[in-house]
């Protein structure tokens, strides 16, 4: 009984001290994090928007203004607000006279090292891909990341043919990646020796995305053209 009463008097004070210390430090830390978050948030969002704008102007040269579109469940194109958190899929770029310069489409797939997210330019007049820019990649430095750096590889995307059939629903030719130097047709991509899987991944991502997006863009062309 004696030991019990002793424990009763000492235990709560220690627990209370521990509780006070941890809660106190916790509150101070939470305040510090909240302050830093509030202070840096506008700048972080600015930088992210800037990076996206830069990427879009790479794939749509000559873009001055842009509009953002999303695709809903019924395969309809909807204009979305920039501050909207929904995933943006399509950006339409216009020159200073409001003429449609091209479209930038977000697409992703699995590369060699993980998810590969790209933005590619699509010209609805020529029905061709006009370039791409890697947004997110975990490809091996020095090997797989040649997809971003090799000028021979990027040359493939000057005017990669993705023209539609007469029915405007299916593509005439599927984009295919061939061995380096074996490109004969405008819808083929010369692969990179030493980055076979990464260059094939780019081809697959583009093939998958254009199969869905090219007919969709074509259907809403008039909608996209007016600014």
């Amino acid at each position, binding site marked *: 009984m004696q030991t019990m009463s002793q424990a009763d008097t000492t235990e709560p004070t220690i627990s209370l001290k*521990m509780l006070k210390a*941890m809660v*106190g*430090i*916790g509150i101070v830390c939470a305040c510090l*994090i909240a302050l830093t978050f509030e202070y840096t948030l506008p700048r*972080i969002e600015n*930088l992210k928007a800037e990076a996206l704008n830069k990427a879009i102007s790479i794939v749509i040269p000559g873009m001055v203004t842009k509009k953002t579109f999303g695709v809903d469940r019924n395969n309809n194109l909807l204009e979305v607000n920039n501050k909207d958190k929904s995933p943006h899929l399509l950006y339409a770029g216009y020159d200073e006279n409001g003429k449609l310069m091209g479209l930038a489409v977000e697409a992703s797939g699995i590369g060699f090292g993980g998810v590969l997210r790209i933005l590619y330019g699509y010209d609805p007049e020529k029905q061709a891909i006009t370039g791409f820019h890697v947004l997110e990649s975990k490809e091996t*430095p*020095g090997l797989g990341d040649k997809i971003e750096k090799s000028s021979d590889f990027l040359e493939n995307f000057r005017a990669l043919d993705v023209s539609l059939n007469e029915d405007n629903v299916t593509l005439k030719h599927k984009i295919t990646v061939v061995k380096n130097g074996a490109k004969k047709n405008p819808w083929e991509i010369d692969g990179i020796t030493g980055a076979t899987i990464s260059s094939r991944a780019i081809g697959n991502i583009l093939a998958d995305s254009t199969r869905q997006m090219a007919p969709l863009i074509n259907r809403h062309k008039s909608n996209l053209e007016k600014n």
Partner: protein
Amino acid sequence: MSVPAKTKTGFLDSLEKSPATDIFLKGLWRKNPTFVQVIGMCPVLAVSNTAENALAMGLATAFVLLMSNTLVSILRFVIPKQVRISCYILIIATFVTMADYAIQAMSVELHKALGAFISLIVVNCLILGRAEAFASKNTVETSVLDALGMGAGFTFALFCLGAVRELLGNGSLFGIAVFPASFQEWVVMMLPAGGFFTLALWLFIFNAVKRAKQNKERGKALP
């Protein structure tokens, strides 16, 4: 000619004797966290592929180390010993989160390159080790000095690795091409394996220098 040399050694001697510089130099050189203690290896090997990444990672770690050492030292009589580790982790995690936001606000590219390794500073044993072994037992001033020394030592080591790996693996330093375009890059240096090779090289150099110095001192002691 001999006069300035004499004053120089005198100045260095007085520097080494002062306890404050001794604490700082201990972290930077004598007990360098990477080259002597070999702790906190995860970021050393993972994000030292370019000089810029290495420097950013080193500075972020040094910042967290400085702030956590200061706070732990201030609170050393307040924190009960039963919950000290969780308190330290709470403090460290807070400053890591702050560093994470700060790097994001500085450059999206840099944040992408460092990736998950910023959040992993929380579990860098260098920081918790200094909090437990030094800051919790010493005054605020000496803890700050200790953190500055260890942080500088860690940044210096990371930079040594990053510079070598970027030079050989990419032919550049801080993104500026150093070698002519005909230079064949050593891809392996950019891969994780290159981190091990470079670390081994630096450990070899560091130990060789230390051994040479020891031999010299032994030679002096024995007439």
